[in-house]
């Protein structure tokens, strides 16, 4: 039904900035792949959460191309407005659900709760396996978020549920860096505090600051779980798993549908374990987790994929203590 659109140009418009080693970057990778495999011109615009920049960026983007992949949270209103203004252009909104009156925006929504649920299980199983080096007898695990916004909260929410599913007696300590996403020193300090409070493993949801968490784990000879990309080899033997979010792959999938004309505007693509949008990645040069743990988690993973086990989705609970 969509008239001829130019598929030779693609814009990747993000509200924040690249360099989070997370979905912005992962998305960028996907865009670059599209560029290579389909020989299309791609452009990336970063808005650094600057309200003054997003609007003109959108305007510029629609002037430049017909296909816009956008990470819009914070700027949903502008996105809706422009999508209604250009109903024939393709807007794919990533990581949140945005619905414009004309229902032309397609949203890709990542079920971070699912991967985080598995991470929670892993952590809980780890802290209860006192045979592991350095693990104390208290059943305490921790999670560190870069901020307290709903995206991060969703991770924490899933993590807590996963842990409780294994053993309701496991205590989950949370810390937030209050927006200091790039302050690795602060991330490390927060982690050290959690370890001092007898946590055995910490799940980091804090981008650059989170690397500080992983290094704290190495320094204490304890454990951490990475996020967004496979960070298991950053601190071999200490990062036991990573909850990855494969935005790039999803973007490529969507673009493929655009290419072969099977693309439908206005739909909500829920991307989870099932389609590999998110996952928990154990692969590492040096895996210290006993096979038993990994198997348990993988079982749960399969159940979730098969729909035998449903993971609660976050909706606004305060997960910070």
């Amino acid at each position, binding site marked *: 039904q969509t008239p001829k659109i130019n598929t030779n140009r693609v814009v990747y418009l993000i509200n924040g900035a690249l360099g989070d080693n997370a979905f912005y970057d992962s998305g960028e990778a996907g865009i670059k792949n599209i560029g290579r495999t389909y020989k299309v011109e791609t452009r990336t*615009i970063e808005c*650094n959460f*600057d*309200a*003054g920049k997003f609007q003109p960026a959108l305007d510029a983007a629609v002037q430049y191309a017909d296909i816009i992949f956008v990470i819009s949270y*914070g700027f949903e*209103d502008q996105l809706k407005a422009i999508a209604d203004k250009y109903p024939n252009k393709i807007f794919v909104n990533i990581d949140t659900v945005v619905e414009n009156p004309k229902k032309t925006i397609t949203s890709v929504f990542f079920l971070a709760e699912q991967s985080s649920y598995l991470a929670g299980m892993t952590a809980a199983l780890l802290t209860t396996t006192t045979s592991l080096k350095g693990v104390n007898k208290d059943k305490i695990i921790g999670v560190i978020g870069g*901020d307290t*916004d709903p995206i991060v909260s969703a991770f924490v929410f899933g993590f807590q549920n996963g842990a409780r599913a294994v053993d309701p007696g496991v205590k989950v300590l949370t810390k937030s860096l209050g927006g200091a996403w790039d302050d690795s020193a602060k991330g490390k300090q927060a982690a050290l505090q959690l370890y001092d409070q007898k946590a055995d493993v910490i799940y980091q949801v804090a981008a650059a600051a989170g690397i500080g968490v992983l290094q704290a784990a190495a320094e204490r000879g304890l454990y951490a779980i990475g996020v967004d990309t496979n960070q298991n080899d950053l601190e071999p033997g200490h990062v036991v798993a990573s909850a990855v979010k494969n935005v790039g792959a999803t973007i490529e999938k969507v673009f493929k549908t655009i290419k072969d004309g099977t693309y439908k505007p206005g739909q909500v693509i829920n991307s989870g374990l099932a389609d590999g949008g998110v996952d928990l990645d154990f692969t590492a040069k040096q895996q210290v987790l006993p096979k038993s743990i990994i198997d348990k988690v993988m079982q749960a993973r399969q159940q979730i994929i098969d729909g035998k086990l449903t993971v609660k989705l976050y909706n606004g609970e305060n997960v910070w203590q």
Partner: protein
Amino acid sequence: MKRRLWSGLVGVVVALAVGALIMLAQGYKPLSTYVALFQFSLGGIGPFTTTLKNSVPLVLTGLSAAVAFASGPVNLGQPGQFVFGALAATLGGLYIRLPAVLEIPLLLLLAIAGGALWSSIAAFLRRAFEMSEFIVTLMLNMIADFFTAWVIAFPLMDRKAFSPMTPQIAKSGWMPDLGLLSSSTLVMLGAVVLVWFVFHRWRAGYEWRMTGQNSVFARLGGCDIHRNFLAVMLVTGALAGLAGGLVVMAGPHRFIKGLGANYAWDGIMIAIMANNSIVGTLVYGVFIAAIQTGALGMELITNVPSEIAQVLQAVLVLIIVATREYTNVLLDRLSARRQAKERAA
């Protein structure tokens, strides 16, 4: 006056040249980059009005800094006063619903009050405990930042949203667009005129200037320097607050995460670029806004990464100021030489 214009232009030219060299060194095409920069900032009505709209927070915070520095107080609190102005306007927009003719002025007043309120804290601490407003305002910036972050993350959080932000303010509180031109631009221009008049024509302005240049003299001359200090702090806080309010009312229509961006610090920089002159602040404010708006074009057309745009801005600012000042010195030296020659002859 004319001299200042010329040396300023020389500065811009030299700066662009140096910027070009840097881009060449990094393998980007300077010319097409500058063209893109121009197209997206000043090339046509649309881009130009966008530039003007983006200049609003820069110019207003710049004014705030200029007036403060020229009158004595080292008020570096624009960032904090900015977000408090924005917060006040947002609160008003969320809970008060009136027809636009009333709503808009009301929200602007609230923004002004919010900024002034925040700066008054620094003024009070200075007056009561002789605490240097320089440090106090710096600290209050951080505190204001975290406080607003909390407000939009918990009490005023929009449940439907995916990142910390308040719900939208009443439609009647949105700054209307007059064609392509955002009415916030007009408010800014109004503020510039008013501030110029107060500063250069009012008795208060006279006393502020004199106090800024030599407070002992002003005091002996019969100026109440303490009252003036308070007045200046409030006024400059109000200007920064107004900037915040306008950004909310003309932009996302709600207080969202990262709203303050780096406006206020750029504003302070602009004020100093302009030697705290009010007209100068307007000029340089629009100029910097043009660069920032045009940077978008660079990213899009010539694929220059944003950090290069950032470097470029730093270089431009530095070189412009340096060249401007230095041309003046050189010109003076030259005329001196000339006169000396003819005396010696």
